[in-house]
């Protein structure tokens, strides 16, 4: 396959970026999207130019490190749940032009080219995305049964890989889907109950403090989520937050 790539190049956080055109030949349809970028980078190195920086690690769709906007869609796939690394070149036509841009959001500053800083997510988790349970203090695992139906929904939410596609796709750059996935994961398990309402308060407050926009229930986030975190999670976060305001936690 022969392709025309238009890639966002930006030298550093404070530099101005622009789209740069590259031609690439010899792409096989079995290659993953990132292998196609590897090939481009080999070609650039060959030509003594600086390769395109992009984040990636496990390349099997689970670590959440990779992620770029491809032809206007976060992770690049229409109607298919995938991460960038699991997108394969057979999804593209020979001779196609592919536009590649980094995640865009005020809270995700570009570090270089296609790599962005997503540490804001870590700080949202720091605010309360955990169950306070010191090592060694746990009761037997069977001490508290967890109803399967709720545990399954908790699991659905726990599958979030923190890639940031939800933020990238949101016209408001909101991280509500990410935040709600963690809230729901912990709120639906018996072990998560003691901190349930203080958790939602502090995580939402941190979400706002990090400079993510507000949610307008548009649904772009859930549409591009590689793990299928549903929009309902945001609704349930809202419900928990409203309830929490009538509780003393965190006053």
């Amino acid at each position, binding site marked *: 396959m022969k392709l025309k790539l238009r890639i966002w190049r930006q030298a550093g956080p404070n530099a101005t970026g622009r789209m740069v055109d590259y031609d690439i030949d010899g792409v096989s349809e079995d290659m993953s999207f990132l292998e196609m970028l590897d090939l481009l980078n080999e070609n650039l190195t060959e030509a003594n130019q600086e390769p395109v920086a992009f984040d990636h690690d496990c390349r099997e769709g689970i670590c959440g490190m990779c992620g770029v906007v491809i032809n206007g869609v976060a992770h690049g796939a229409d109607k298919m749940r995938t991460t960038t690394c699991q997108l394969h070149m057979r999804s593209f036509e020979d001779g196609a032009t592919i536009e590649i841009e980094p995640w865009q959001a005020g809270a995700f500053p570009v570090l270089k080219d296609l790599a962005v800083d997503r540490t804001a997510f870590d700080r949202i988790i720091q605010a309360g995305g955990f169950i306070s349970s010191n090592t060694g203090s746990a009761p037997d695992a069977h001490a508290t049964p967890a109803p399967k139906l709720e545990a399954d929904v908790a699991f659905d939410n726990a599958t979030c890989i923190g890639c940031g596609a939800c933020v990238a796709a949101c016209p408001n750059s909101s991280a509500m889907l990410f935040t709600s996935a963690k809230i729901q994961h912990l709120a639906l398990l018996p072990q998560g109950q003691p901190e349930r309402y203080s958790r939602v308060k502090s995580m939402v407050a941190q979400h706002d403090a990090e400079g993510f926009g507000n949610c307008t229930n548009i649904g772009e986030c859930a549409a591009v989520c590689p793990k299928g975190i549903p929009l309902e999670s945001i609704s349930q976060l809202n419900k928990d*937050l409203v309830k929490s305001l009538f509780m003393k*936690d965190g006053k």
Partner: protein
Amino acid sequence: MANILTTHQRAVRSSVVKKVIMAVTGIIMIGFLLMHMYGNLKMFQGPESFDGYAHWLKGDILYPIVPKGVFIWIFRFGLTASVILHIWAAVSLSRNTLKVRGSGYQKFRPQAQTYSARTMRWGGVIVAGFIIFHLLQFTVKVITPGFDPNAGPFEMFLLTFQQWWMVVLYAVLMVVICMHVRHGFWSAFVTLGANSSPRSGKILNWLGIGVAVALFIGFMLPPVAVLLGWITN
């Protein structure tokens, strides 16, 4: 500033709470619109019914618990408060979001959003403008194309919508309002936690569409009937 607030205080000031305010006030306004629409449909029952209803609204509700004419002010106050809170929350949220969001992709292909969802902000501004115009026209009566400020409610209605361009103008504005209501209705209930399963999400979506369509038809029937001469003096 932010770090001297308690977690609770930060949560109270959060975007989610502002959204809840928007949701509650939005639902109040949708309720008002439904009632307003119901009142308008009395046009089909003739002047006595319509004027009587208008009179009852302004004077007789809750009488004798409160003196005559007081309820309408309570009502106006509540509605105005809703409008103000709704706009305040919207402006506050939007200003922040527009400041922090990304600068926009060279190319972006929406995957889920509807036109109405995308146009909530501008739609809201147009709706606000329309409300002002509408109040100046029928409540304060300073803009009175085609009727005398002293005319009765039924007559005002009749004279206004016998002008085809007024019907067209209102039709266009109703489209904008109903689009705002469609996403607004869905969004309000989602914000209040009603979206708890894929099924409830679907139901809410259809309800939103249903309410928007009902409002459009209900509001446009009397003016169209007037224009077509089905309703006359």
